[in-house]
């Protein structure tokens, strides 16, 4: 569902970005650089999904920019035949904000990881989301520091044994979706790296959304945290755990066997057979409280993992508003440099 589908005002996420009639293929988006992630890394799957998905947008390739921070996932821009910047640790949202403000004709994507976005760059992430800058943020969450070879991350489970925590991690982890919703992100989605269709659908909605879109992607690190999401990849397990939400539809999973119902101020999982159909929660992507409650169904143990689009709501974007201010100022007063420099009080030495 796009914001427009929700009956809300505003432009589409890609309005102003030039389009092309020339057919595009995934390979058009592959750069000439050799991809150097570890064999079996979940990043490959995401890269392929993005490269296959982008041609469907029909945008001019030169008007797409990928900006990343530091970490394994942040090598992403090198492999995209678009414009790209591999910046510094945690700062990609800030750099992308400046770019988005300066250039309404670009589709700007941020690629980041759990360490990059939630640890060193946590401040930029929440402020970008609250400002609602028109950026698509892909947060590759593997719950570990990969590039620095295996320290715990801000999404690692408590007690995790890593190189830096031989006696177990003491940190309580972030739930990235809850965090983003707390920052009042106008779009929050989640997908699992191995679910190509689900990921592509979330990416599509994110691209069409005007404003900050945070997409958390559960991504396997085969070297330092292998199997972290295996329970979501086993068909039988996944059926019991993954709750894919779709705007306007009742929230059921496990082939309809289970459903999500209200439970006080939160939500609970029930057997569909045990509840009245009208008690099954219908997903409303405009409802922040519902989105937050859904995010709380997911815990580190992945017992109930909500995927899909938690929230998708229209709100004025920072970059649109910033440009509108400049335009209005120009309209109100033509720039006159000589008059500005003279000011009000002058005197002349003749």
């Amino acid at each position, binding site marked *: 569902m796009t914001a427009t589908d929700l009956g809300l005002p505003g432009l589409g996420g890609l309005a102003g970005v*030039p389009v092309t009639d020339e057919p595009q293929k995934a390979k058009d988006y592959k*750069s000439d*650089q050799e991809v150097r992630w570890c064999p079996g890394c979940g990043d490959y799957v995401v890269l392929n999904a993005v490269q296959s998905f982008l041609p469907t947008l029909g945008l*001019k*390739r*030169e*008007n797409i*920019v990928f*900006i990343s921070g*530091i970490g394994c996932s942040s090598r992403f*821009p*090198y492999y*995209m*035949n*678009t*414009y*790209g*910047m*591999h*910046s*510094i640790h945690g*700062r990609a*949202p*800030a*750099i*992308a*904000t*400046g*770019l*988005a*403000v*300066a*250039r309404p*004709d*670009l589709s700007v994507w941020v690629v980041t990881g759990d360490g990059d976005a939630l640890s060193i760059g946590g*401040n*930029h992430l929440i*402020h970008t989301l609250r400002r609602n800058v028109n950026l698509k943020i892909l947060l590759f969450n593997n719950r570990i520091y990969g590039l620095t070879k295996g320290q715990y991350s801000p999404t690692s489970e408590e007690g995790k044994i890593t190189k830096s925590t031989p006696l177990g991690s003491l940190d309580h982890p972030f739930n990235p979706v809850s965090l983003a919703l707390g920052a009042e992100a106008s779009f929050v989605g989640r997908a699992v790296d191995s679910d190509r269709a689900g990921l592509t659908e979330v990416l599509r909605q994110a691209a069409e959304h005007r404003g900050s879109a945070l997409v958390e992607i559960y991504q396997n690190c085969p070297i330092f945290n292998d199997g972290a999401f295996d329970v979501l990849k086993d068909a039988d397990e996944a059926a019991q755990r993954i709750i894919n939400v779709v705007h306007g539809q009742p929230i059921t999973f496990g082939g309809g066997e289970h459903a999500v119902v209200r439970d006080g101020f939160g939500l609970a999982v029930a057997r569909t057979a045990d509840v009245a159909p009208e008690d099954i929660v219908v997903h409303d992507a405009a409802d922040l409280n519902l989105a937050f409650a859904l995010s709380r169904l997911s815990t580190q143990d992945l017992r109930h993992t909500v995927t899909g689009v938690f929230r998708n709501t229209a709100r004025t974007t920072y970059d649109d508003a*910033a*440009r509108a*201010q*400049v335009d209005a*100022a*120009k309209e*109100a*007063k*033509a*720039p006159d*440099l*000589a008059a*500005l*420099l*003279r*000011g009000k*009080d*002058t*005197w*002349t*030495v*003749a």
Partner: protein
Amino acid sequence: MTTDVGNGAAPGGRNGGSEVRKLDRVVIRFAGDSGDGMQLTGDRFTSEAAAFGNDLATLPNFPAEIRAPQGTLPGVSSFQLHFADYDILTPGDRPDVLVAMNPAALKANIGDLPKGGMLIVNTDEFTKRNLVKVGYDANPLDDASLEAYQVHKVAMATLTIGALENTGLGKKDAERAKNMFALGLLSWMYHRPTEGTERFLREKFAKKPDIAEANVLAFRAGWNYGETTESFAVTYEVAPAKLNLGTYRQITGNTALAYGIVAAGQRAGLPVVLGTYPITPASDILHELSKHKNFGITTLQAEDEIAGIGAALGASYGGALGVTSTSGPGIALKSETIGLAVMTELPLVVIDVQRGGPSTGLPTKTEQADLLQAMFGRNGESPVPVIAPQSPADCFDAALDAVRIAVKYRTPVLLLSDGAIANGSEPWLIPDVAELPDLSVEFATEPNGPDGAFWPYLRDPETLARPWAVPGTAGLQHRIGGLEKADGSGNISYDPANHDHMVRLRQRKVDGIEVPDVEVDDPSGAAKVLVVGWGSSYGPIGAAARRVRKLGLPVAHAHLRHLNPFPKNLGEVLSRYERVVVPEMNLGQLALLLRAKYLVDAISYTKVQGLPFKAEELQDVLAEVIKGVSA
């Protein structure tokens, strides 16, 4: 009645013909509690002096606390103004006139008033409680302790309240206008024009006409007090200065810097994006630029210093002119992004309005101690051009120069202003817009590499600048980043020889930046001693050099706008003199660079008291060195 006696009119009708004494220069210091409006008072007197055609220089000095406890020494705020009938270089070493609005202001400033100087005190605040608060055992107005000065005791608050009796304003509100009473009195004493101040007050308080009128009334009451009481036997005239022909305005360094950025954006034909975070004493640059969005300026108050420069760099990547403004602590936070700008070779202007450090240091006081941070405060070999304005008005030209280097050489540029010139003001000969430098840039539009490829690091052979290829340009898709890249293609490269080559190449690019030769001011041509300064010490050093020459001691003065790269003739200039003296408001940072680069045995004279040098002290330093050489 003031309106018809304004304009420094001939004093024929004044005060039964009080004596008028002509002076060539006067230094006045207004001092009071930080809530007393001393900055505004000084600022208005400055505007009056400017409107009258005097040359002037100002030094605001205020505490970091917005409202320190009332009546205490830490809460004292002052504004010093030097105005003259000739071109002056500094805000003056010591005041000729001290206006003290309370005991704390008296105590904090009386030490600077020379014997025989004029002291005007607001007696109403000299209560027992206020005296005790600052450690006066007895009222200095009642004993002999101020005997050495010409003391004028004026009950400013009482007189102001009296003057506003019929306005319907409460006592407390009325009393707040006493700073305008003081301004009125001083304006009378120095034959200042008054219309400007009255107009200013009416505009400032346009939404509160009763407050506007109260301030105007208080201002007039102060004027009339001087006019009608017998206590002031003498008034003073300081004739207009004979400055170069042209139209002038008064301007502070921060305003001039902001205007320089506006002008540079216009001359470069680029939208400006200021990404920044509030910090003393740089915030006024943000405030000023945010008023001029009609010039295509976007101001982005980011969540922190790092995001501010990040947004600026992102905007530059997109083809805008990215600018960030901060002070020393902010530079520390921005260092990594400056390094990224060095590596990605994108234009970026980084403004550092220096203040006392380290750490939070002295936020409202001045210092020049960020030079080495600007030069070297990053990981790796990370050369950045550094330039420094020498006076408030010069901030305009320095900003244009910074943009010139940034866009031409595709590099971050560090611009080192400081608290003294940021808040200080002086007359500015308004430039002709048509004469401003052309800063237009060309973005890359065509592939430049083999087989129709685009190589983002293929350089201009002359400037060594790489192409500025902005997203949206078809066929030039490329990736840049903080990793070392292969010369030319820009692909990631870990090749040892390539890294060595690139490190030297980036250094060579900055070393090769064209900067004008440094000029030497040596009127007699006989100097054996050269004094070298940089940045805001231009005024005190220049004034000291004048004084020394008046004593018959020749001295040469060279002032560096460009700290990196140094002007090409600097080594030769240094070698011409027997001794080189380098005064700095740090522990010798420029001296260190000069010694390292030119093997010159420079004498470093340093002071870090949060205040500009006094011409007097530099005079002594220079005279001593010159005498040593001559002997």
